């Protein structure tokens, strides 16, 4: 199952946050003058009133709750407990209503543009002809699937769940670190973190107006219903396709299937016959119309993609192309979240939507371009260098934290294959109050909202806040002290 490049689903906690030293960055709760920022007023009062000792006790209770509910992620082959808990910090991360309005418009805008880009590159390629995105970057990209050319997915939607990783560097600005157009994970933590917080601090929710997020599963289901294939008659049968219990996000798969009331299937439960997709049930084969797949393109269909794959449903891609079943996300959607393409997202927004981008990109230098490469090579010790096609955290250099030897090794790699690398500055990431032992301290956070694209574009007011629990740490990777927080959007 784990051949070649690690599947995208493993990347949830593998994305390092880049940041500079702790004191200079934006503090989510406090102003420079030491006052409390408006969205955090009630949280600050609550923290003071509760006291750190009590918070610490409640933290232990929260962890016990998680364990009892069995909210774990699987890590095999590293030794230790294969069923691990993700550390949960009970101090919520808060967005004010107007902050959210901006962020929400920006995320939806991006999700629309990314889908428009996908439709375009698999059809006429207008953006390439206009000279905005270099042709070679798309057509020679391994994430580009020639098999998808000319095919119209239902509703022209390719990426039905877009996870946009956002960081904040100052009071007025959100920046997008990367887009996840394939199968972003983490939404179960968004839902469970809220559930735990509501169980533990009901009085807090009574006094602070927090936008509810529990509509997400039904909105996801509605989104999937909206992209039923042309040959589907009546109510579509939806399934969630998982690689199985050994996958790190298996808990999330079973959790979402449960909340949507759909079957959780493995590839061996499905087969294609007579051009249609069926699942094996105790009462014989049943039609399947929409597949929310949490499995990589390469493992979908051994006939179409990887003949050596033991996973997959032979003939599935053919049934998809014939309009008998819908795959969410569409195969080949990964070309839109490729790191080499990322640079052009603001241009996509202008080109397809005729709008100015609401969210900024992080400044990015492409090593393929001579002038930019020179800049990168001259400043390696201050930059973060990423491999273009690597998924989260793999093949990456964090300049300020790297040894000289490592930097020199990377220099050679960049010179050898410049088109494989991009570089970004180390960002001054925002930080939020976090319970560390028995004291509240600031820790770096990032944010991943989950935008749904069907006939409508929907965004639940919330998302997954990840926090680097180690002081000054750049990395929210759970094996290196990364955790999660509940995320609050205050109502108007």
């Amino acid at each position, binding site marked *: 199952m784990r051949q070649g490049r690690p599947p995208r689903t493993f990347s949830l906690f593998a994305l390092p946050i880049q940041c500079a030293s702790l004191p200079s960055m934006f503090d989510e709760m406090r102003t420079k003058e030491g006052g409390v920022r408006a969205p955090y007023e009630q949280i600050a009062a609550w923290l003071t009133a509760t006291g750190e000792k009590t918070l610490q006790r409640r933290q232990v209770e929260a962890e016990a709750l998680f364990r009892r509910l*069995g909210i774990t992620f699987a890590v095999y082959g590293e030794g230790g407990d294969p069923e691990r808990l993700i550390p949960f910090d009970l101090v919520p991360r808060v967005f004010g209503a107007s902050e959210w309005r901006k962020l929400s418009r920006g995320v939806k805008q991006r999700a629309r543009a990314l889908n428009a880009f996908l439709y375009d590159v698999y059809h006429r390629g207008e953006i390439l002809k206009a000279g905005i995105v270099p042709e070679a970057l798309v057509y020679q990209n391994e994430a580009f699937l020639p098999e998808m050319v000319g095919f119209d997915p239902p509703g022209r939607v390719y990426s039905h769940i877009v996870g946009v990783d956002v960081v904040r560097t100052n009071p007025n600005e959100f920046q997008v670190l990367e887009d996840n157009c394939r199968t972003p994970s983490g939404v179960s933590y968004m839902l469970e973190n809220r559930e735990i917080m509501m169980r533990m601090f009901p009085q807090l929710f009574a006094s602070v107006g927090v936008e509810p997020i529990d509509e997400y599963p039904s909105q996801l289901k509605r989104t999937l219903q909206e992209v039923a294939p042309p040959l589907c008659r*009546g*109510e579509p*049968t939806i399934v969630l396709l998982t690689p*199985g*219990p050994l996958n790190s996000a298996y808990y999330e798969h*079973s959790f979402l*299937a*449960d909340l949507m009331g759909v*079957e*959780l*299937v*493995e590839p*061996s*439960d499905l087969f294609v*016959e007579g051009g249609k997709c*069926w*699942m*094996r*049930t*105790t*009462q*014989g*084969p*049943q*039609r399947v119309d929409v597949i929310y797949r949490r499995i990589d393109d390469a493992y979908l269909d051994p006939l179409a993609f990887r003949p050596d794959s033991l996973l997959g449903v032979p003939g599935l891609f053919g049934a998809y192309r014939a309009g008998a079943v819908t795959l969410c996300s569409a195969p080949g959607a990964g070309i839109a979240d490729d790191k080499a393409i990322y640079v052009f997202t603001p241009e996509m927004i202008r080109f397809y939507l005729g709008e100015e981008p609401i969210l900024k990109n992080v400044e990015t230098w492409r090593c393929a371009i001579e002038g930019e490469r020179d800049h990168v090579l001259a400043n390696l010790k201050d930059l973060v260098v990423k491999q273009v096609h690597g998924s989260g955290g793999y093949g990456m250099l964090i300049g300020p934290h790297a040894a000289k030897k490592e930097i020199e090794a990377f220099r050679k790699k960049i010179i050898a294959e410049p088109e494989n690398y991009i570089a970004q500055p180390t960002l001054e990431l925002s930080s939020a109050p976090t319970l560390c032992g028995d004291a509240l301290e600031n820790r770096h956070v990032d944010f991943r909202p989950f935008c749904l694209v069907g006939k409508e574009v929907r965004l639940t007011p919330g998302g997954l806040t990840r926090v680097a629990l180690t002081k000054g740490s750049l990395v929210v990777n759970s094996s290196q002290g990364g955790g999660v927080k509940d995320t609050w959007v205050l109502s108007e």
Partner: protein
Amino acid sequence: MCEASVFAMLSRTAQNLYWMGRYIERADATARLIEMGRRMTMLPSANAEWRSVARASGSAKALADDPKASDRAIIIRLLLDAENPSSIRCCIAQARANAKAIRTALTSDMWEALNDSWRLLETLDADEAVSELPIWLDWAKQRAAAFRGAVETSLLRNDGFIFLKLGELLERAEMTLRLLDVKYYVLLPETDVVGGGRDFHQWTSVLRATGALRAYHHVNRGDYTPWSIAEFLVLNPMFPRSAAYCFTQIDRRLNELALLYDGQRFACHDIAANMVGRLEACDIQVLFQSGLHEFIGDSIQITNRLSSAISNAYHF
């Protein structure tokens, strides 16, 4: 093929429940089998007992045929061997794997019953296992009992419950037959009445291993004859480990399933009904004359056929 979106259970889920039922029961029965071997070897001049246990288990044939195989090797094979899919460790590991794969169709009580102390068995080494054998045999039996209890009070009574029960009953029928066969290997009945000492001890240990000693007393008022013991374990309709009881229940569960599934009946329904008929018409004296061992071998084959007929019928 049905185009309508009637809610049906995934075949894989049914399969996982069925095998979870079988594996739990097998862990329980294997513990009882080892216990029986232990009791038999407590008598002086015991020698072939462990090998007959190995043979009856159906999963240690090489050891059963090897005259030099040690007791210890057989115990380890049945208790801990990761290569033996019927060892207690593997049975419980398999049942846990089945449970994980259908997390949504399982209750938390059932999961806890499987999970408790599991890590201890995982890390157990052979020396410890042999020196603390009774503790681990009890543990396996307790896990099985706790699991059945959790099923009884927490699982929805739908098709999933029926598949779990079918697996459990089928395995139990087979293991009772196998336990009875151990005695056949040790000593064929030569006299009408079980003689004193060793013979007596061996027959009663078969009853003990099936948890039937008291029940047998209650029914037969204390007389031990080979055929009344065999009759009790094969034909008694009230004893829950007897083959007759298990097959009657299998027949009943399959009929319930047919009711749930639009009256659909398959080969498995016929096999079960035939077996029930055969057991009802059976006379133990005749059975002994025509050969108990042959009858047991035959019945075990029928359970195997029934098992594959069930998976064929329900597509797993």
